[in-house]
């Protein structure tokens, strides 16, 4: 009992001793080397950086993101401590684009939405790294994901979307995809990784 008390005391102490730690990472590429080369064949390298809402503006930024998203951030999976991974894609020393992903709650479980964007924030590519839906094949098919190429955050904000739900019974996952992509583009705009702390 004495030992247990010591352990608990020590743990509480450790939990409070540091203030700069991060929570588990939001969404990282499973294999950055292969994914970066596939999405940007002309690339020669990439730089990884981790950014949180907390460090970029905390509660005020969270509120701003929620306003743009027109939805509240989920307290467990989208809290402000979650670090998002940004991959600045390089050709030589120059940044030619970004790859970034988000986790999004779907009908049956989490999905991971990865997009490649150019320096202006236009979508160059989009794919599901993880998709837990019985109709996953329809969502992951390029005939669906390619419809997002060329879109920007502006298009999501103004509703300039002509993408149709590819599923029969998973409309909730389609809606979740739109929310996740919108969130991803909002975070890109707010985080401005080009000015971030990766370099």
């Amino acid at each position: 009992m004495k030992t247990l008390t010591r352990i608990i005391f020590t743990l509480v102490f450790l939990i409070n001793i540091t203030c700069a730690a991060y929570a588990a990472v939001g969404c990282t590429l499973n294999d950055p080397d292969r994914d970066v080369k596939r999405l940007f064949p002309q690339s020669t390298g990439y730089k990884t950086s981790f950014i949180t809402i907390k460090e970029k503006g905390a509660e005020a930024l969270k509120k701003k993101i929620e306003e743009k998203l027109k939805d509240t951030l989920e307290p467990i999976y989208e809290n402000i401590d979650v670090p998002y991974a940004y991959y600045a894609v390089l050709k030589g020393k120059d940044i030619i684009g970004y790859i970034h992903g988000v986790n999004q709650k779907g009908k049956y479980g989490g999905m991971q939405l990865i997009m490649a964007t150019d320096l202006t924030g236009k979508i160059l590519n989009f794919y599901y790294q993880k998709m837990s839906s019985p109709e996953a094949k329809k969502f992951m098919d390029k005939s669906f994901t390619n419809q997002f190429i060329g879109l920007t955050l502006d298009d999501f904000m103004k509703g300039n979307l002509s993408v149709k739900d590819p599923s029969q019974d998973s409309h909730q996952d389609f809606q979740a995809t739109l929310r996740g992509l919108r969130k991803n583009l909002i975070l890109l705009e707010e985080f401005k990784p080009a000015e971030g702390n990766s370099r």
Partner: protein
Amino acid sequence: MSLKIRLIRIIVFLMVCFSFRAAHAGETLFYKEVNLIGGYSDRDRWIGKSSTMANSLGFEYYRKFSGDYGDYLTADLQMRASYDSKMNSHQAWGLQIHNAWLEYKLLQAAKLKVGHFDPAFGLEPVLDTHATLIQTLAEEDIGFKKDWGVELRGSLPKFDYETALQLGSGMSIRRRDGSFLATTRIGSPAGGNLQYGLSLLYGEVLQTEGMRTFPKNKLLSDDTIAKKRVGLDGQYLYGPYLFKTEAAFGKNDDKDVLGYLAEVDYTLPRYQNWEFELQFHSWINDLAERSSDDSTLTLGTSYKLSQNTTLRAAYSHDFNMTGMKEEDKIVMQFYYFGA
């Protein structure tokens, strides 16, 4: 100064150093870890650990190193100060080093890793079982989950490969009787809903007991066991279900051995922070001998209280542990990993 005080001081010192560093670098991640575990077994009565975990506190420090032309080096250090309530006070505390590696990017499709990491065999290198009550076959198959050595790994358009040469000693750094472990795994690209792999293992492996790195865990024999294996593994995500399986066949010295595992995980669609797991695994120590298998059925559940905190529980029934009677066991875990 007692060992436990020294270990706690080391952990606290490293945590403060690394977390201070983390505050200034977007290339760095730092996590604190708390693991409280306890349960009841009808064979051993009250227990304060599972097969791979004891009460512990620790951290993980992860960093990407970049130059003008991009990332070139990754570092990971993950360690725990653990307490085993079954041991006497001098032996109860120990330092476990789990991940301790540097990975240098040689080419687009080749990276060289040095340190302490998963052998390239079976499901273990593609799953994160660091904190889970339900484990893969690795402990029974190889004898440990991580080992010291070097690895070459990379990804090609159609498959991933990794090949490792390690000491064959597991958690502690030691070499006896010419011990070594060579492993190779070739698998489908990570991340798809369907993943599978083929693995090979060859080595002279030391048999140890316990998860400590310092002081060294117990060496059960000065002699190695000659191990040869071929293994298959797979995972399939379908809706709220995740199916996992692996099988390994080969030799331990002159004995033919076989192991297999089947697991299904189910995430409740309405409450996605709640998951159930059902696993059956069996390890046959000598195919020529009857009743030489260790077979266990486990029903587990995990509930995510927050991004950082998870509660887990598992009930397991051991049908036949070689040389021991059947056992029913329930284990509960409080796990914190984050800020």
